[in-house]
């Protein structure tokens, strides 16, 4: 069975989901990722879902869970590269992933992680007015 690779870049972990996510794979990723955050002492996790065309409620909840788990382990999670159609579907499903930071692409995601690590005061990486 395919496994989703977790790459280490500096103190960040990069997960690029290239295959269709099924529930079992999602649970394994969750498991794998939390282990790696601890062993690598990662400060940031970036999940690239630009190749995902379908995100159902289960995957949506998994993204939320991963963000919550990394927060407990003091790492910042950013979901990057979501497609417009996926974003609309998630919103219609009522899953707006309020606990997850988002960025348009890997570049902006890395910048966001850097900023969040440098300035832990910004609660969700969202700048207030």
């Amino acid at each position, binding site marked *: 069975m395919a496994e989703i690779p977790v790459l280490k870049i500096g103190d960040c972990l990069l997960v690029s989901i290239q295959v269709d996510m099924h529930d079992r794979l999602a649970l394994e990723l969750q498991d794998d990722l939390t282990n790696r955050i601890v062993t690598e002492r990662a400060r940031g996790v970036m999940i690239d879902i630009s190749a995902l065309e379908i995100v159902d409620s289960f995957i949506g909840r998994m993204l939320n869970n991963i963000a919550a788990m990394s927060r407990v382990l003091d790492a910042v999670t950013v979901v990057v590269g*979501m497609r*417009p159609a996926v974003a609309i579907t*998630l*919103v219609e499903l009522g899953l*707006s992933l309020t606990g997850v930071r988002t960025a*348009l*692409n890997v570049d*902006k995601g890395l910048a966001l992680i850097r900023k969040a690590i440098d300035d832990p005061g910004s609660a969700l990486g969202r700048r207030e007015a």
Partner: protein
Amino acid sequence: MAEEHATMIPQLLAEHEQTLLRDWMESQKKSGALRGGQVSEAELADNSRRLLAGLRGGAATEQFEDITTPVWDQRRTVLEEISRSRATLGLTPAETATFVFSLKEPLFALLREKVGKDPDRLAHEIWVATSLLDKLGLYTVEAFQKTREDIIARQQQELLELSTPVVRLWEGVLALPLIGTLDSARTQIVMESLLEEIVTSGAEIAIIDITGVPTVDTLVAQHLIKTVAAARLMGADCIISGIRPQIAQTIVHLGLELGVVSKATMADAFALALRRLGKAVVDRAPTPQEL
């Protein structure tokens, strides 16, 4: 009833086309089909001739039962054209249908003249003629309605396109001036065009301006919140601007929580967007070239 094909209508139409046309024109003129000059006589004559010619051609195929079959295609096209041209003249669909129905009078008169001696035969011929003309008459009404519906659908589409532009204000800043009420269909289009633009421009901030939205109720607010949430999933922050005092009051009275930064004017929102991007606007004297 006599056999279906034992009708002399095709033959009559072919042999007496000119007489029929003349009688028909007479009776139409008498019944005021010219509408005091609104329809020119030449046009009425032309329409009548074309319809009669079509009818003759169609009747020759001896398929009276169903006018949706391919052999009637050409005749239906004639009817559609007549219906359309009469609609643009401001005639009601009833008047257009009456135009077709009025052919019954001369046709029945002709039938009576030919087979008046044989009541059974006459009744059968009249039945065939009347059912055919009724179908054609009703078809003009359908064609009229379809023309109307096409116009309405096109206007709706144009309205949608007109009212949902996405504007680039600055590198990384998009503006979405909303005009008109936000219903589900509009929200869908607004959301799609905003998200597409976020992808192509790589914008981080989107300003949604609701100056042109007449009222904000719970449903509109719900749609706004959805749009903001979808943009956030794409990594763009939203600022809502153009909130009029009345709308501010409504939002509070309804107990709505937009959950997003809002500003009174687009200018304020743009200033905030620039600050977030680390840009500053400074005062300086314009050079002579800039004046």
